[in-house]
């Protein structure tokens, strides 16, 4: 192993584990070595906390600096960065909160915010063209499959966590005050992007299930059948209109006759 690699490994150990002997022995004997390692540790820790604050702004606002800071330090120990690109650094935070037995609301809020984070920079895609729409409407629904934008994420939650997310958006109105604890109520939302901004739209549970199953590649006829079995009055056209208005449908494929 090269001397340089030994030095880098010793420095890394000093920062991560506080095993500063090997690293400080290699540093100048000017009395600064221990303080230097501590300073780097602090700067690095602050950087990662800042990244998590940017990725999870609502969770940060909800929990405050103190709790969030402790959470961020624990997360860094458990899930150190493995890339020079910090976009994915916070992806394990929902799992980390679960491991900590954190309150359900925080876990679900983190899941929702990670979906928002992904949607913010997901690939752009065009909307359903009039020709595609016509083909979809006129074809046998058992042969039609709907393709959703990469900017659309379907997420279900055991509580209506989107209410907290909406209430804590910058500029939210006082009408958005949410009573806690949230009721236990299975909730589905679509996370989308419009004009570069992330939007979270709650759907009625059966509407959500229809959209989710369509997004998993099921054909239109079987999804409609599933919905009507649950609710004979279910209006499939209404749901498709909602999805079109949310601009989440990118296209459709119509299976040809063999």
């Amino acid at each position: 192993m090269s001397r340089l690699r030994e030095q880098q490994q010793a420095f890394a150990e000093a920062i991560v584990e506080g095993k500063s002997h090997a690293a400080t022995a290699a540093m100048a004997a000017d009395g600064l070595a221990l303080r230097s390692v501590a300073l780097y540790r602090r700067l690095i820790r602050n950087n990662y906390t800042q990244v998590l604050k940017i990725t999870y702004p609502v969770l940060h606002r909800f929990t405050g600096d103190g709790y969030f800071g402790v959470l961020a330090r624990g997360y860094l120990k458990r899930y150190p960065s493995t890339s020079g690109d910090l976009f994915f650094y916070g992806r394990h935070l929902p799992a980390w909160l679960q491991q900590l037995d954190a309150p359900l609301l925080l876990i679900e809020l983190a899941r929702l915010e990670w979906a928002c984070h992904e949607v913010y920079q997901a690939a752009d895609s065009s909307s359903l063209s009039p020709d595609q729409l016509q083909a979809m409407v006129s074809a046998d629904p058992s042969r039609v499959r709907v393709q959703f934008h990469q900017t659309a994420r379907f997420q279900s939650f055991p509580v209506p966590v989107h209410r907290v997310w909406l209430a804590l958006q910058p500029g939210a109105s006082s009408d958005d005050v949410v009573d806690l604890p949230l009721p236990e109520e299975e909730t589905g939302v679509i996370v989308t992007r419009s004009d570069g901004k992330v939007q979270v739209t709650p759907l009625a549970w059966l509407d959500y299930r229809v959209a989710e199953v369509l997004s998993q590649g099921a054909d239109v006829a079987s999804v409609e059948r599933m919905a009507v079995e649950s609710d004979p009055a279910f209006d499939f056209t209404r749901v498709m209109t909602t999805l079109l208005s949310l601009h989440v449908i990118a296209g459709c494929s119509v299976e040809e006759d063999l």
Partner: protein
Amino acid sequence: MSVQHPAPIPAQAGIGLRAHHFREILDAPPPVAWMETHPENYFGDGGAPLRILERIRARYPLSFHGVGLSLGSTDPMDHAHIGKLNALIDRFEPAFVSEHLSWSSVGGRFFNDLLPLPYTAESLDHICARIDEAQNLLKRPLLIENITRYLTWQDSPISEGAFLSEMAGRTGCGILLDLNNVYVNAVNFHTDPLDMLMAIPAEAVWEIHLAGFDRFGRMLIDTHGQPVYPEVWGLYRWAVHHFGPRPTLIEWDTNLPPLSVLVEQATQADAILGACHVTTA
């Protein structure tokens, strides 16, 4: 090395492009000559950041200032990172692409900070090989920035200025001379900043960075969260006269002020550059 030289950025002042100022810049483009940004902030597949950068690029020359390549690391080069960087370079055609004389990862673990190398013959060979590799993969010369460091290695016999100079000579890379870093290091380690600057050949300096620092006990910390300090303006005047006018960036990353403050700092830098142009004309 087979590389193409980039189109030049004028020897005028530019500002760092931060998301905080996107709206202001789009609504009323400020009178600055160019802008610099961290390419890693645009590694996503789509969305607003890329669309905004396209609009800004249509108006200003652009420079990419990378922070994630970990050039000095003894780990293998991150080809996925290089691939994303190359795609952005193809799309936005920045005039400069820069990185740092530092490492930030070892054994697959990243610290996402700019950690100092010891200035040894081994480090020099290593960083030169890595710069060659990166320049070949990116098909262009890089600019490499001197960093702030908060420690010195015991075994570090080469001076920073000589190290940078030799690195530039061997690889053909340019030096991105960060004068705030020079000043912070000089104060923290009780050295003369001019000793470092005098060791660098003028032709190797392609760009200059100016920024502000904060105090942490007796140490100065390179936070990029304050205006440029008078002492650093003093170094800048010296550097512009010694090296000649160079594209100069006002860097501000934390505690971001209104855009007008950055523009005012850029105007101040332009005045110094202008005075030098007059003197040398």
